C-alpha cells in the first residue's frame, strides 16, 4: 500500500537527487497518472502516492526530516535527535507486542494530516486526497468531486448474449475492490456500463466520480461480431449444398436449425433473422451462416466412382460466362 512505499522510490529518484530532479520526476509522473489524464482505477492511488512524495521531498525542511526519521517523520516532535529516535524505535520494536504507531498522534505536521506510521488502516483516504487536490490552493477551491474512471470488462460472446451478474475485481483507491455487475443482455463491444459513485475519490467529502466498465468482447473461435450481427462459417458437403439440407448449428443462444436451400454455393450468407445479439432497446442483431463447401480430402473408391459419374453427366461450368 502506498504509505509503505519510500517517497524516493515512489518518484523513482535516488536519495541524493537534486530538487530539479525531484521536480522533473514528479512532473513526468503527474502527467502520466493524473486522474483526468489516466482513467485507469489504479492511476488515482499512484497519483496520490507521487503527490504526497513530492509534497514532502520538494520542501527542504520536510525532506530533511523524512531523511532522518523515515515514514514516521510527521510524528517526531521538533528537536529530536535522529540517532536517539532510531535507537528508541529499535528498542520498542524488540519489545514483545510492541505497537509501531507510537500513539498515532493526529494532526502533526501539515494541515490536518492524519498519519499512522507503518500500519495503513488508520489513513483517511479522504483527508489524504483533500491534502493533494485541495491542499495547495485551499483558499480558492472548496471540496472537489472525484474524476470518472474507466476499466475494461472482457466478455465472451456468450456472456454478451445472455448478460447476467458478474463479479469484477479492480485495483483502486484503498486496495482491491470487487463489484457485482449486472450485465445487460446484448452488450456490444465498446459499450460502457456505469457504476455511479465508484470512480475517483472526491476531496473533503465531495462526491466520488463514476466508474465506467468498457465492454471488450473477446475473440471467439467461431463467431465474428459486427455490432449485434453474428457471423460464423458453415461448412457443407457438396451434396448438401447441391441438394439442400437442414443443418443443426450451435448459436450463441443455443442450438438452431438452418435450412440450406438447394443450389447453394460457397460464400452465400444465410440469415437467421433476430438470432444475433439481443438488443434491450430495439431490433436484435441477425445471425449469418457463411457457407463454405468442403470436399473430402481423400475419396473412397465408391466416392471416386460417383464423382466421376457426376463429372461425366454434368454440364455445369462455373467459369463459363453467362
Amino acid at each position, binding site marked *: 500500500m502506498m504509505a509503505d512505499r519510500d517517497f524516493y522510490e515512489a518518484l523513482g529518484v535516488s536519495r541524493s537527487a537534486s530538487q530539479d530532479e525531484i521536480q522533473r520526476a514528479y512532473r513526468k509522473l*503527474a*502527467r502520466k497518472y*493524473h*486522474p*483526468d*489524464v489516466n482513467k485507469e482505477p489504479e492511476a488515482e492511488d499512484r*497519483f496520490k502516492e507521487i*503527490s504526497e512524495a513530492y509534497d514532502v521531498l520538494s520542501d527542504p525542511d520536510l525532506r530533511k526530516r523524512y531523511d532522518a526519521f523515515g515514514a514516521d517523520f510527521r510524528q517526531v516532535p521538533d528537536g529530536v535527535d535522529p540517532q536517539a529516535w532510531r535507537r528508541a524505535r529499535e528498542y520498542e520494536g524488540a519489545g514483545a507486542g510492541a505497537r509501531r504507531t507510537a500513539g498515532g498522534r493526529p494532526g502533526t505536521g501539515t494541515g490536518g494530516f492524519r498519519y499512522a506510521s507503518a500500519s495503513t488502516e488508520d489513513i483517511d483516504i479522504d483527508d489524504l486526497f483533500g491534502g*493533494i*487536490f*485541495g491542499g*495547495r*490552493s485551499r483558499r*480558492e*477551491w*472548496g*471540496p*472537489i*468531486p*472525484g*474524476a*470518472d474512471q474507466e476499466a475494461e470488462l472482457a466478455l465472451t*460472446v456468450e456472456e454478451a448474449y445472455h448478460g447476467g451478474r458478474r463479479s469484477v475485481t479492480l485495483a483502486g483507491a484503498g486496495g482491491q475492490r470487487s463489484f457485482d455487475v449486472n450485465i445487460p443482455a446484448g452488450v456490444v*463491444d*465498446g459499450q460502457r456500463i456505469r457504476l455511479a459513485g465508484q470512480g475517483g475519490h*472526491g476531496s473533503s467529502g*465531495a462526491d466520488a*466520480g463514476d466508474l465506467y466498465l*468498457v465492454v471488450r*468482447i473477446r*475473440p*471467439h473461435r467461431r*463467431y*465474428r*461480431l*459486427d455490432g449485434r450481427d453474428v457471423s460464423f462459417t458453415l461448412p457443407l458437403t457438396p451434396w448438401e449444398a447441391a441438394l439442400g439440407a437442414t443443418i443443426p448449428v450451435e448459436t450463441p443462444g443455443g442450438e438452431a436449425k438452418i435450412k440450406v436451400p438447394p443450389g447453394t454455393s460457397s460464400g452465400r450468407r444465410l440469415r437467421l433473422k433476430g438470432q444475433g445479439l439481443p438488443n434491450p432497446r430495439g431490433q436484435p442483431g441477425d445471425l449469418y451462416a457463411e457457407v463454405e463447401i468442403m470436399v473430402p480430402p481423400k475419396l473412397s473408391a465408391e466416392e471416386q466412382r460417383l464423382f466421376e459419374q457426376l463429372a461425366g453427366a454434368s454440364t455445369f461450368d462455373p467459369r463459363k460466362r453467362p
Partner: protein
Amino acid sequence: MTIYALARTARLDLESFAHDCGIHPDLVLRLVRLGLLDAEQDGFGGPWFEPSQIAQVARIQRLRSGFSLNYAALGLVLDLLDRVSVLEAAARHRPRRTGVSTWT
C-alpha cells in the same frame, strides 16, 4: 392535437451553481468568460448552467491544482483531452484487423 406537458429544464442559476461547485460566483463568471464553462443567458443577461457543468468545474479544479496550469492553458488541455477521448472511443469501435478476417 397533441398536448405537450411543460417540461422543467434542469438549469442552475449562478448562485446555486457556485454553491454546488463550492466556489465563489466571481470565479464561475471568470471561467465562463474564459470559455471553460458553458452557460446560457436568460432574458436579463444572467447565466444559467446545466448540472453536467459541475463535473466540468471539478475537472478544471483537479487539473489546475495538479499541474499548476493557468486558465488559458487549461482550455487547451481540456480540449485536447476531449479530443483524445473521442479518438479513443472511435478506435474502440473500429474493428481490429488481425490477419484476413476480423474475428471478434
